């Protein structure tokens, strides 16, 4: 299968993989849906227990396999597991961006923001903005 991007005139919207967290940010994303707030449907979440547990390799893998961007919906200070979740996740983002650069992928394709369990509006805003900024980048390098 091929990616459908590149057709002249109509570019398909950037695909975003969201790493969310079961107790916090996924709940916030749920709230956006329950409130019928709209964001681009080309964003799909994979929930994990905590954003501090994301492997940079997964980020690279996603960008090499059909996604145009990865968004980490971090627990932030709401994290039920670790108080310094923000710092830990930020380190993962640093490592991840380095890994992307090594693989000739723009580090801007990885973004992180804390999304709390009621952060429905912020999440929607992040999705819209991230999609917009991804549109300005060239198509994903590593795509098949």
């Amino acid at each position: 299968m091929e990616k459908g991007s590149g057709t002249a005139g109509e570019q398909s919207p950037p695909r975003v993989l969201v790493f969310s967290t079961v107790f916090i940010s996924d709940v916030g994303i749920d709230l956006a849906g329950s409130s019928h707030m709209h964001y681009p449907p080309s964003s799909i979440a994979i929930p994990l227990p905590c954003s501090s547990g994301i492997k940079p390799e997964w980020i690279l893998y996603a960008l090499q396999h059909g996604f145009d961007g990865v968004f980490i919906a971090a627990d932030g200070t709401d994290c039920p597991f670790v108080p310094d979740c923000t710092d830990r996740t930020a380190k993962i983002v640093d490592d991840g961006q380095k890994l992307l650069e090594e693989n000739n992928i723009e580090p801007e394709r990885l973004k992180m923001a804390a999304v709390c369990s009621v952060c429905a509006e912020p999440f929607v805003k992040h999705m819209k903005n991230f999609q917009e900024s991804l549109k300005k980048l060239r198509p994903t390098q590593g795509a098949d």
Partner: protein
Amino acid sequence: MSERRIGVYICHCGGNISDFVEVEKVRDAIENEEGVTVAKTTMFACSDAAQQEMINDIHEHKLDGLVVASCSPTLHTFTFRGVAERAGLNPYQYVQVNVREQCSWAHTDLKEQATEKAIYMVKAGIAKVRLTHPLKKTRIDTVPRTLVIGAGISGLRAAIAHSDLGISAFVIEKSDRIGGWVSEFGKMYPHNRLGSDLITELSEEIKKRENIHIYTEAEILTKSGSVGDFDVKIKVKNEEISLNVGSIIVATGFASYQPYEGEYAYGTDGVLTLPDFKELIDNSKGEIIYQGKPVKNVTYIYCVGSRDSSGEKGHTYCSRYCCNAAIHASLIANDVSSELNQFHIYRDIRTYGKYELLYREALQKGAVFIKFDEASPPRVEKSNGRFNVQVKDVLTFGEEIEIESDLVVLVTAMEPRENKAMNDVLKLPVSLDGFFKEIHPKLRPVETVIDGVLIAGTSQAPRNSAESVAMSLAATSKSASLLMKGYVELEPLIAMVNEDTCVWCGKCSEACPYSAIEKISSGEKEIAAINTAQCKGCGCCVPVCPENALTIKGYTDEQIRAMIDAMEVLL
């Protein structure tokens, strides 16, 4: 061909999903996925009939994996794990795909794309299930003790209820006395007993019991361990005490909204909040005297600090208790002085249930109710020592009315109490309103995402004392059902070590917030080992391992990659 035999069920959820996602199309798109043996759509996956159908399918087709694409996993993960269990399928070989909150409801504007997204999501779910293995829960013995935070009516009642069941209770209270708000109340509805008497009664009851300990001027400092077996450090005055408890009940109560200077002339003598007014009437006999002058006319302004649709100055929510409380106070005021003229300027009267009787009684006794619109709130001016309250009455289509009053009572909101220090320790999620948040308002109303930590009373939402006690008893029964069983089973979705690749560098152990990773010897080398009772499955150890030797069950490298692969398709 995979040897897996997976059942996939796609829920209509009435129309919540199927109105925006073409569920049949989703089914068609995934039925030939590798390993899929059964692919069905269902009107309500959570219905008894649908559950039974899944069980039958599991038996008939010898299914070893289950995918339900329906609502948020927060709501029904346990439901369908239960289905799997009843059918003899390991519950951890089940995956819930959230095509409602994160698909149909979020993309009501783009049906076609929502359907495509749902297809990817279900495919990812199938990919994940394909790589599941049967898992077993970890068993932990529980200790028959609870920690109650807050010695208001909810906390005290919870402590006694635990004690009744043979569970010891430690109650810690931040202030220097017990009883909270209720201890300051006069006559309460419907029994007309004094709030202070109720608290005295509870306190006498507690004194009789050996298994309740109350610490005033006490705060929680740290918490470790897990559900059923928490180690808690508390500070009582200047002393630190360690407690070992199986559950924690949070009953920290509410704060009363403080109007800002000038809000309905607040700050002027004679403009009182509802709690101030209650104090005034509770201490009045025969006549209500304010600052030496007899009070003849009282005007109440409702929803002060509540239902502020802008959310700028007040809260957006309805504080729920205040209509009842204000009307009840006005009836007590009427008892003190039947000559009193009382005017209630309200937005909507919400005297639900039996409290409607209070409203009727107030009407019968001559109280005047004037409805105002949020867009044109009443104005309060003081002249010659009296207040002139001006309001537009909605029910006469905007007649402007002027009421002379001696007192203006602001019916103030309930708001969440400042609990930062405590919540830095407990880490409970907080709702948009600032109150503590339950897992599910209907299905799991007193539990929090932190296993073993329960919420009660007005720490959770505005409510009256009767409702608060009801919630505290609900929390008690949840706590007791946990502790009286003698053990809890912990989620097996925790870390595991690849013994072949681990070379013990110690980084994982440093990263673990629960001290759940230790060094052990394995044959000739040293490797990391997971303490299954301590590990919470957060995954903090996973990215720090230079050898890729750690993984969280249910979130393995293979599973994440497979999910990404499953979604790598043409848009």
